[in-house]
């Protein structure tokens, strides 16, 4: 006669693995592990005022002006995808880091790490695309560098950039300025970039091909800043790795406020939703490369929205949430059923090498 196990309250569980001593892919995901790496390794080492704001760009006083500096690295795989490539992505991503501070982008440096064996033709395509993107955005690539690593050590091509620009006037956008009552505005549908990349990798095909939304947002930002009083826009962030969730959580944490999102208000394209359902992904965590989140004074929200919708990159802009006094440091979402769920920070990576 088979004997079934009896439960006598013995608690059984493995010993915790604990903190990793090595870098995991998750450390690059833009989620919780990335944040911990910054807090535990980088901040203690560098520790200065400009850095400690932890914005997408650093702003320093220089010769009577406010100079903005940002740096970014691009490791996206594959190199070419619908809607762009690593070259155009490098320009858009760097410009956007500056634009989120209201900065007028001026100059870029571009450094290439090339893998031995990469086809020079592929490099040419990337460089042409990069130059075109820079020209369209009105910035110049003024300096660069090239290194080559042995075959097997570089996945084709990596790009590192530095972007420099000027902050107009005494503008101060920062993720620690969100105030209870502020509106959270999103510029358009989420998840396009991450799904476009994944579709390439996984051999998914779409009826209408999903394009990456990779775009330079500085002119949209300029349109938003015009016609609203200084300080009405508290901060802006582009939800890249880690998606809308990471951006909202970062703002909530840095401003020490709560954020309530409204699920039904967040736009997602049908194809993106289909891919996410199929693969068990949540669009809230999927990367975007041509979208921004803005936290705005409620009195100015309508004006900002109007300015966004008049711009080609903001046609589908909408208010998706509110900043709250309660649940400080947490992002919650009202579901279509009226219940509240937490929008947690991604622990590891959903989709590696997305940017």
């Amino acid at each position, binding site marked *: 006669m088979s004997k079934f196990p009896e439960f006598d309250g013995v608690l059984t569980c493995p010993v915790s693995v604990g903190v990793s001593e090595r870098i995991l892919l998750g450390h690059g995901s833009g989620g919780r592990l990335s944040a911990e790496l910054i807090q535990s390794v980088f901040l203690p080492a560098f520790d200065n005022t400009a850095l400690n704001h932890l914005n997408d760009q650093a702003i320093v006083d220089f010769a009577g002006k406010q100079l903005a500096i940002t740096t970014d690295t691009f490791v996206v795989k594959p190199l070419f995808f619908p809607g762009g490539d690593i070259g155009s992505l490098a320009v858009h991503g760097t410009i956007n880091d500056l634009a989120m501070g209201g900065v007028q982008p001026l100059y870029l440096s571009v450094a290439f790490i090339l893998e031995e064996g990469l086809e020079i033709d592929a490099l040419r395509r990337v460089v042409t695309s990069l130059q075109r993107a820079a020209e369209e955005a009105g910035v110049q690539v003024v300096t660069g560098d090239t290194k080559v690593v042995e075959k097997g050590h570089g996945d084709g091509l990596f790009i590192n950039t530095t972007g420099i620009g000027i902050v107009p006037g005494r503008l101060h956008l920062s993720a620690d300025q969100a105030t209870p009552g502020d509106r959270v505005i999103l510029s358009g549908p989420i998840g396009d970039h991450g799904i476009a990349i994944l579709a390439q990798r996984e051999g998914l*095909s779409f*009826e209408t091909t999903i394009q990456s939304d990779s775009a330079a947002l500085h002119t949209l930002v300029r349109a938003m800043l015009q016609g609203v009083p200084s300080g009405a826009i508290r901060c802006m962030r582009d939800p890249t790795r880690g998606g809308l969730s990471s951006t909202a959580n970062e703002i909530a944490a840095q401003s020490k406020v709560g954020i309530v999102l409204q699920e039904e208000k967040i736009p997602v394209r049908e*194809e993106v939703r289909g891919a996410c359902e*199929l693969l068990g992904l949540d669009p809230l965590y999927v990367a975007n490369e041509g979208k921004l989140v803005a936290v705005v004074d409620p009195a100015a929200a309508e004006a900002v929205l109007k300015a966004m919708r008049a711009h080609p990159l903001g046609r589908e802009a909408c208010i998706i949430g509110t900043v709250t006094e309660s649940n400080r440091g947490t992002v919650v979402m009202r579901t279509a059923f*009226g219940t509240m769920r937490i929008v947690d920070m991604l622990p590891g990576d959903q989709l590696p090498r997305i940017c």
Partner: protein
Amino acid sequence: MCLAIPGKIVSIEDAAGLRQARVQFGGIIREASLELVPEAQIGDYVLVHVGFAISRIDEDEAKQTLADLEQMARLTEEVGADEMPEHSVQNGPSRQ
């Protein structure tokens, strides 16, 4: 782990003796094996799990389920919110 999503078969092909389909989910199309649902035809909806169709959606049953739910919803709306049964115990902060 039990993630299975319904999709519509748009084409079927025989790949080296194995029946494969292109299945449409919302706006995307992905391949799935039909080995476990050999009777499936183009236009059928199938439930796909880890790249394999595991059942054909019985559209009549689906319609019936939705019709029953729709009827219940209409009745509930007709009865209205003022008919709260005395012995029920609602939970937590309500939002009506």
